[in-house]
């Protein structure tokens, strides 16, 4: 209970699902062989943390930010540029962290002080504008960021796939640098999610929820809402930048498509909404469902598109083409905002509470 900050999943099914997901992620290197499974698992970890940090903003303070990928990108690029420029050593990793995290926090502070001061609705528009400017900036400053190509880099010796830590003959599994990196990603993501859980269940988190419900009343109660909102914005930015660092370390690459593009922002929004806003646990569920679907359903779309094309159906091949993945995502997004505003977690919790009240009668 302590580790969950007194905020358990509050639904038996949900607990079970979460336990299965976390165990499966932790055991991926041993259960599911192959590079793809490990990649998917690492991506789920990174996105679970990233989406949880976004949930702090969207679900707990009720402010929509479109700049979350910008912070994610800052983290990615900071570590990538440092490792690219200084070579594969730990000093470069440290430099990336020391430069990237404060930069993200400062930018979040500036945006927050600037736009949260007036009206919440400004925040969404201003973050969108700033994020798009940042995206253009990152692709234009090619001497620093590598432009559209991004930056590929080498990891420090310890984290490379070639480094064998425990040879195969000891346990029957080879533990190499790649697997160590995976566990690094897993552990840091888990820590960040637990920390976020702590934040939202603290008195500070309560104030955020009060602001979400009624900013005017929260202000009347004497809370400095701008301070709280800006603080939450900075915290979310820090976690997002850390997730970006993990992502870049895992991919050994940072580029506009993997860390800055607007479609990642939409992915995050969708994951939060599917999982359930304002729950933190929703982030884990949302990220898992979404990334599994993205990696394994998209190929199904290709098959369906070809089948429709061979059957001579008009329009359908175009609509089912794997590149039109976002179209179905958008429809799913609208449907889930409309029909399931509380997401999977909300649904499960509601089902659980109906059950328990039913049995007590």
């Amino acid at each position, binding site marked *: 209970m302590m580790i969950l900050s007194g905020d358990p999943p509050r639904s038996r099914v949900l607990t079970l699902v979460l336990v299965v997901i976390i165990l499966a992620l932790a055991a991926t290197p041993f259960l599911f062989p192959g590079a793809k499974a490990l990649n998917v698992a690492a991506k789920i970890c990174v996105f679970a943390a990233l989406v949880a940090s976004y949930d702090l903003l969207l679900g707990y303070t009720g402010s929509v930010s479109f700049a979350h990928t910008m912070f994610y990108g800052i983290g990615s690029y900071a570590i990538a540029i440092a490792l690219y420029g200084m070579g594969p050593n730990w000093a470069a990793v440290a430099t990336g962290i020391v430069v990237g995290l404060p930069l993200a926090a400062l930018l979040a502070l500036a945006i927050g002080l*600037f736009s949260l001061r007036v009206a919440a609705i400004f925040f969404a528009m201003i973050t969108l504008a700033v994020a798009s400017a940042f995206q253009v900036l990152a692709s234009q400053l090619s001497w620093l960021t590598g432009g559209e190509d991004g930056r590929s880099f080498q990891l420090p010796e310890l984290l490379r796939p070639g480094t064998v830590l425990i040879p195969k003959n000891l346990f029957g599994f080879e533990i190499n640098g790649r697997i160590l990196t995976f566990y690094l990603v897993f552990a840091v993501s888990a820590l960040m999610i637990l920390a976020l859980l702590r934040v939202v269940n603290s008195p500070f988190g309560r104030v955020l929820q009060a602001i979400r419900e009624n900013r005017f009343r929260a202000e009347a109660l004497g809370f400095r809402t701008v301070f709280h909102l800006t603080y939450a914005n900075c915290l979310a930015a820090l976690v997002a930048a850390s997730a970006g660092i993990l992502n870049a370390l895992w991919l050994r690459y940072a580029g506009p498509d993997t860390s800055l593009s607007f479609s990642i922002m939409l992915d995050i929004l969708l994951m939060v909404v599917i999982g359930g806003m304002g729950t933190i646990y929703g982030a884990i569920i949302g990220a898992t469902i979404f990334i599994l679907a993205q990696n394994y359903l998209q190929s199904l779309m290709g098959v369906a598109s070809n089948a429709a094309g061979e059957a001579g159906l008009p329009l359908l091949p175009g609509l089912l083409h794997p590149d*039109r993945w976002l179209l179905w995502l958008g429809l799913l997004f609208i449907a889930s905002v*409309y029909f399931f505003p509380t997401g999977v977690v909300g649904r499960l919790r509601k089902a659980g509470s109906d059950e328990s009240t039913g049995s007590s009668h």
Partner: protein
Amino acid sequence: MTDLAANDPLPKPKRDIAPILLPLALAVLVIPLIGSTSSWLTLTAASLAMGMMIFIMASGLTLVFGLMDVLNFGHGAFIAVGAYVATLVLAPFAASIQADSLWMNLAVLAPAALLSMAVSGALGLVVERVLILPVYGQHLKQILMTTGGLIVAEQTLYALWGPQIIPMPLPASLRGSFILGDVAIAKYRVLAMLIGLAIFIAIQLVLNRSKVGLLIRAGVENREMVEALGYRIRRLFLGVFMTGSALAGLGGVMWALYREQVHASMSDDLTVLIFIVVIIGGLGSIGGCFIGAILVAMVANYGGFLVPKLALVSNILLMVAILMWRPRGLYAVTSR
């Protein structure tokens, strides 16, 4: 007597002219920096034309917000849809577009623009009923729903027209420039300026001189009061929403002709631009939107000429500067 009340500015509103002076001052200030008068005139004309086009696209967004507190993140979709629909008319009649006769060109261009407006307006009806009606009064869900709408619209355009850039050549008679001495002003820019100005004046007349306009303005000030007086503000709002969508469609056609190409991603770029414009102008204010559009265009044109490196972030810097001065935009709508 009632007419008088509608027409008269009530207890002498204080005229706030500082924002109007802003673009003028900016234009005058850059003269010494640019140096040559002819390039200054060309740049100013370009800014005005671009500003008018942005204004046409943004006007609907700001009114919709002002009237009903609805923030439509999918407004950019109407722009792209308008542009794509225009290609439906322009592509089959490419020959008459390339004919060197103004009337033949206009005979194709005008129906194309009208069709675009009709389709965008109709799409506006659908969007309002399907996406916005269920989430009235909930900002968070509005933003999410309309963002989803933007993705779906954009991807549908990709599925229907393919991901390639569609060229959209200017009609032959609108190419080239008017040459006055050593000043060259592109013909199309003059046309864009005229259309933009006409639409601005039309909007101002409707808002300030008609009963509907009176209701819209009253609704922006205080929605509940207008409802209490027995007007169906929802229907009024639907009308404004459809008009705004149609104008966005028209703006899309004009922008596509200006750039001479159509691409579904234009909705993304322009969404950011029109957001900056309505923020600068003050959400809900048409006059502010007009000045904001011209300011953004001026900064883009002058900035692009003087410090090309800065062009990327110039809009953001402009927005920051304006909001430092007036945190709610140039003309704050009082009730919000």
